[in-house]
């Protein structure tokens, strides 16, 4: 059994899940909304990148920057148009709104680009491989994912710890009312959280798209697995989510090696088991409801 290979691939795909789960967690942390549209937002941004690359033939770095700007606008726009007008919605209401945004984006993307699979490539040659330890083959995609995930995590750490905006976001998350009294414009914080989350999601989405293929439903499965990773890490802590993502990738890869037939349901089994045994996740503090 190629343990080393499974380990490397599991960690790489796990980093991808972790990256994407971070996007889910940023929104959940700030506004307590589980964003079911996250996958479709990333899908839409990836399609925009694909469109820029294949129709206008711009160089990749330019297309990447334009996509990043687009994804931020998309996130802010969804927050502004769909979530902000809802006055005091219930939890179910929030879920229905994000599900509606998901359906809307999926329909729009299929209308524009059709349902067939497109080829989306990052400027990485996947055939170039390295073998630092025998039995562990690493290709460029793996390296890129691990590097990007690490950089994003470090940036997020610095952002939440040292910048004014990051501190304001944490304050909003802890107590919205108190943050408002302290002069924080919480509405703007929510917009910003959605933009940031959409940006990170789009980055992860492009990695997923280059690994498989690009079609309007390609983010459905990765989204659910990233969700499992987020649940594993507790939906509240970003370091927890990264560890959760790594675990999820490893579990899935090893499980898929032994029972390839049942690989699609690993994520759900993990979600259900974690929620039943430790609803607050492996790494988050347990939350007690006060009357």
């Amino acid at each position, binding site marked *: 059994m190629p343990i080393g290979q499974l380990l490397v691939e599991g960690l790489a795909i796990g980093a991808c899940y972790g990256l994407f789960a971070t996007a889910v967690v940023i929104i959940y942390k700030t506004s307590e909304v589980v964003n079911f549209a996250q996958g479709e937002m990333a899908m839409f941004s990836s399609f925009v990148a694909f469109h820029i690359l294949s129709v206008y033939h711009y160089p990749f770095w330019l297309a990447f920057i334009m996509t990043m700007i687009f994804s931020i606008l998309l996130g802010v726009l969804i927050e502004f148009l769909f979530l902000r007008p*809802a006055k005091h919605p219930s939890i179910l209401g929030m879920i*229905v709104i994000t599900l509606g945004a998901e359906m809307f984006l999926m*329909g729009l993307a*299929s209308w524009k680009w*059709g349902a067939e699979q497109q080829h989306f490539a990052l400027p990485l040659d996947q055939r170039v491989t390295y073998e630092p330890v025998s039995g562990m083959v690493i290709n460029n995609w793996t390296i890129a994912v691990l590097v990007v995930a690490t950089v994003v995590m470090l940036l997020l750490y610095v952002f939440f710890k040292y910048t004014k905006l990051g501190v304001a976001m944490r304050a909003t998350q802890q107590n919205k009312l108190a943050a408002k009294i302290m002069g924080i414009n919480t509405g703007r914080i929510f917009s910003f959280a959605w933009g940031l989350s959409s940006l990170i999601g789009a980055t992860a989405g492009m990695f997923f798209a280059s690994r498989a293929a690009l079609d309007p439903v390609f983010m459905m499965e990765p989204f659910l697995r990233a969700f499992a990773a987020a*649940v594993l890490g507790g939906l509240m802590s970003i370091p927890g989510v990264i560890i959760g993502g790594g675990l999820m990738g490893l579990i899935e890869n090893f499980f898929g090696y032994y029972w390839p037939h049942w690989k699609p349901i690993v994520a759900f089994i993990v979600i*259900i088991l974690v929620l*039943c045994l430790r609803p607050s996740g492996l790494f988050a503090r347990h939350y007690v409801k006060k009357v």
Partner: protein
Amino acid sequence: MDMKRDYYEDIRLFKSNVVIFWTVVLLIALFTAPLYIDSYNVYLLNIIMVHVILAVGLNILVGSTGQISLGHAGFFAIGAYGTALLMMKFQIPFVFAILIAAFIAAFFGFILGLPALRLEGPYLAIASLGFGLTIMHIIGGMDVFGGRMGVRAPPLDLGIQQLGLTWILKTDVQKYYLILILTILLVVGARNILKTRVGRSFVAIRDSDIAAEVIGVNLTIYKTLAFAVSAFYAGVAGGLFGFVLGFFDPFTFNLILSIMFLVMVVVGGLGAIQGGIMGAALITYLQYDLFKNIAEVPYLGAFLVAVSKQWFTLVGLENFNAMAIGLIMIGIIIFEPLGMFGVWIRLKKYWMTWPF
């Protein structure tokens, strides 16, 4: 507006003679409908009624008990596969097969209800979503269930084969009457459940589960019971759905279907039987009829075709369905969180003292 003066007034089936009159009119219209509508609309009505059964059941869970479920396509699939396979493999008569399948679905509902004791809100939504997709993948992955190829529903035989009785329903109209009778029974049943001790416990759990526990409602029993009842309804609806479609594969019962069921309940109105019925009828009509043939709608259809040719793809116009439903979902929460039932109540209140 309608103050209840004693208990028997509260549990009456009909609130007033006006309600009785309109109910009778509606029933007569439904029972004579196949005489004057064409066969496609009978088929559409069949699907609507199947969805009504499911939406009424889901409303008991989501609207009355306050538990979110994104996995009802799973119970629906259990009902459809259970009924068809029990009839084909074990030659069990239809009536018993659909009951057994519904009870299997109810058992799975009970199982899903157990984690629901500890979870709430978004966590419960995720857990039920995972459950629904797991059911879909398990059915798709096992050869017993026909695998990815799907299953062809057996002839709908109402008789008992073992006693030599056969009464096969072939046409949509015959199925229509069977489904109509079952729908009426189940809707009246749901209404009665909500009027009993059990129903009041559900509502108490929705309003505050801690307060309900304090006044002596057993959360373990009633939460799992809500899931089981709702899954039972979904199982019956699924069993009928299989015969309406005639052919189904595991991917009929995907996440989008679960979302659609939730939309029906939310659009119709949470916690009201009429809400479930109205929501199921409207969303099914939009999805299966209006939005499906959007290009043939006067003015709007031509406009959309022009837009498609200019900026989008013409083949992708069928996805207008998903877009429009998505916008409806967002709009209903923003503008009318109580759904169509809320609009109805407001209209009624506005006109109550007319002309003053």
